[in-house]
């Protein structure tokens, strides 16, 4: 087993902190968002979530047998994430956006850049890069999702899980995923895979920060 997870944490720490300390993120975590901005964020998230499994599938199809453990990991992950875009849709309905409006929403250029990069990286760069996407999204969900959901709930006076079910449930669920992700990342032994994961995590942090910034 390698210690790659520890290396990934260190090498992407600045990007994580750049996300965490972006003024828009700071303000959102401290004070929540207006309902209009929260709707916009969820609409963008809908597309990120909708494309998550196809990106994982593209990566799984391109992985060599040398990385079969990553392929199995992605299969399981896809199974767990399947249908989660409907959770986002339900939250959107709770804050006044119909399912039809959600599906008709055209994602921002920043969301397209994130999703487009992840397809390209899985297809043309290195399929292990999908793990960099997973790392970024799970860090954002498990570390920042809880405080962010609490701030949104306070700001919009939402009751229970209504309107925040996707973010709140992923804050808890992805906590378990983080431990699984660490284990699979530590099975990677080759430098090409390490570099692909680090690059992907850095780019996903960058694009995700831009998505939030534009909300």
């Amino acid at each position: 087993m390698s210690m790659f997870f520890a290396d990934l944490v260190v090498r992407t720490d600045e990007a994580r902190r750049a996300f965490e300390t972006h003024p828009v993120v700071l303000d959102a975590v401290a004070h929540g968002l207006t309902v209009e901005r929260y709707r916009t964020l969820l609409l963008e998230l809908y597309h990120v979530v909708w494309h998550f499994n196809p990106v994982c599938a593209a990566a799984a199809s391109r992985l060599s047998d040398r990385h079969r453990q990553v392929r199995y990991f992605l299969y399981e992950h896809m199974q767990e994430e399947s249908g989660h875009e409907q959770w986002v849709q339900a939250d959107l309905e709770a804050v006044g956006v119909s399912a039809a409006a959600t599906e008709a929403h055209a994602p921002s250029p920043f969301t397209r850049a994130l999703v487009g990069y992840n397809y390209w990286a899985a297809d043309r760069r290195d399929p292990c890069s999908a793990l960099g996407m997973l790392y970024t999204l799970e860090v954002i969900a498990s570390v920042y999702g809880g405080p962010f959901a609490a701030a949104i709930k306070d700001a919009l006076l939402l009751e229970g899980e209504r309107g925040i079910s996707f973010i709140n449930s992923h804050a808890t669920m992805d906590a378990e995923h983080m431990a699984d992700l660490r284990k699979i990342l530590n099975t990677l032994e080759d430098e090409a895979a390490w570099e692909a994961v680090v690059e992907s995590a850095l780019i996903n942090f960058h694009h995700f920060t831009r998505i939030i910034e534009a909300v």
Partner: protein
Amino acid sequence: MNAVSGVPQLLSRPYKYLRLEWTSELAMLRVRTCVKPIQCYSLAGLTEMQRVLDDIAQNPGLVRHLVLSSDVTGVFNFGGDLALFVLLVRAQDVDSLKMYGRRCIDLVWWLEHAARRGVHTTVLVQGDTLGGGLESVLPFHKVIFERSAQAGFPEVLFNLFPGMGAWPLTIRKAGFAVANDMVLSGRLFTADQLLRRSLVDVVVDDGDGENAIWDVVRMVDPRLRGTLAALHAQRMAAPITYESLLTTVEMWAETALTLTTRDLRLMERLARAQVRKAGGADEGAVEEIKRIELDTAWGELRTGNTVWGDAEHGTGLTAWGALND
């Protein structure tokens, strides 16, 4: 390399989170930390600080006085990077937690032996300093607090303990009972309370901290060799070993892995309060700690379940009644 030629090397590095100033007549290096907007010991901030200390060590005789302060208004240091802790705990990554802890105690260890390197160390605290922030202050030879600054070890509130030198450094300066009270209560202390406990050497009115630094440095400089020899001997009289610091860090990392979702949510509450303060709000982590203590105290009153059982060592409501002790 002679001492003077080391100055450009020391000052020319492109630091992102530190601001360095050099006063040649006193051979004084001022280091101002600015891990904005959340002033804490981030991995990058730790790396930069270690680089400064390594540069000083590689140029013996160059720096006679090292002075640390914060460039962030109202905050000296919030301590550990809470978001990083949450990430590592959720990933159950004990190795990275230990690595983070080792980086912290390497700084403490350097400061512990600064006198042996010919460097007198002074720190000015002008705002809140919590957990690892307070641990990083204690090894300095001279600790100056402005009167409104508050400090404490809140880790126990979320089921952890300060693991980077709090126990031995506090015991050595203030005694076992004070260390016990501070670490196990999670209470915050005012500058004057810390002065009475001998953890702080000088308390000055707000705004007078800069003058206090110059007073200390000008007083020490003419008798530097004797002072440093005495301070070296002082630390030999009550030694702290690297091995004990390391063992404690390992215990700290293993304890961190046992944090529950409730504990992590409390940690997130503090992190969110830090964010509010960074965003310009009047209230931050210190006020949130008080609220957590009150919540705990109300819980104890409702259930009759008190940890300490008497007012002298009590947490929460009883502790705030004792602010003037």
